[in-house]
């Protein structure tokens, strides 16, 4: 009978819908950031190991990595070696956001494990992390020379992620050394007098 096919068809449809849901579930555990393609939130925070504060606008004109970390975060330790490697590669500067941590612990951590960061901003109250839509450390953002967020990775940085998601999005390396401000011509808006930031010595 034609009629008896209706429940079977309905059941088959349900199976298809649920199967799509299950197959797509692994991607859903990572929540897409709404900030992709939008200007990175600006901030001024105290900087670790310096008397002055760090102004995110000082990075204008350069691509940089923005890495959210804390000494309380086990995954951050796991990715640290990779961050050091990225820093050594000299492809782009790293800005660390030390999220809800203690300054002393952060200093100790960088002394013990090595310091991949050109700047470490101290987000003691966690406000800047919220502005960036951070929901769990470590998170790493790729910011372009115009100050736009190009990509965000949630979880520890790995060689594969670095290769596939970050290096692939970066413009080809420039011949000039990284520390030169405004290396890219497209990235020099007239109102941005970039104060030459002295590159942090990697201890």
């Amino acid at each position: 009978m034609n009629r008896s096919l209706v429940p079977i068809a309905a059941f088959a449809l349900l199976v298809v819908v649920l199967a799509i849901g299950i197959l797509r579930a692994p991607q859903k555990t990572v929540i897409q950031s709404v900030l992709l393609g939008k200007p990175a939130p600006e901030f001024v925070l105290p900087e670790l190991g310096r008397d002055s504060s760090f102004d995110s606008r000082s990075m204008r004109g350069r691509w940089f990595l923005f890495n959210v970390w804390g000494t309380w975060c086990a995954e951050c330790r796991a990715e640290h070696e990779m961050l050091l490697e990225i820093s050594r590669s000299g492809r782009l500067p790293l800005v660390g956001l030390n999220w809800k941590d203690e300054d002393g612990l952060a200093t100790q951590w960088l002394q013990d494990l090595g310091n991949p960061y050109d700047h470490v901003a101290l987000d003691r109250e966690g406000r800047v992390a919220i502005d960036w839509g951070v929901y769990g450390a470590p998170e790493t953002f790729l910011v372009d020379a115009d100050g736009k967020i190009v990509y965000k990775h949630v979880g520890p940085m790995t060689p594969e992620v670095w290769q596939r998601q970050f290096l692939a999005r970066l413009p080809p390396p420039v011949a000039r050394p990284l520390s030169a401000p405004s290396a890219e011509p497209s990235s020099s808006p007239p109102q941005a007098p970039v104060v030459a930031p002295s590159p942090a010595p990697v201890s």
Partner: protein
Amino acid sequence: MSLRSSSGWPMLLALMLLFAAGIARAVDPIELEDPLLQQRYRALSHELRCMQCQNQSIADSPVGLAGDLRREVRELLVAGKSDDEIRTWMRNRYGDFILFRPVFSARTAWLWLAPGVLLVLGLGIAVRVIRQRAAVAAGGRDDDDGSPA
């Protein structure tokens, strides 16, 4: 003691309320001075998702980020922002996912409309089935009576 006995139910209810009271106080002890703001704060913090734990609201979650987000909600309330402005503030940082009640948009329209459509569909089928059965039953009785159909 059976729960069905008349003395069991009040006892059970009292116990449930007692436990609920503990949960309600445990996570977020902060109260705003203005009772009206406090009421809105309660409501808002229950409809915002804790992004770390995902199946709890920020009102129910003890994790650090939920506490920070509650602080933002309080400060925005005190600064005179409307509920919608606060929701938008959160969505601009964490996306629609932070709202437990999804916004109505082209993408979420089916979410909102599907229950109504399914209800109408189900009712339609039910009415048809009931009418058919009534007709069959009536027909059967007529046969029993031996009267012409």
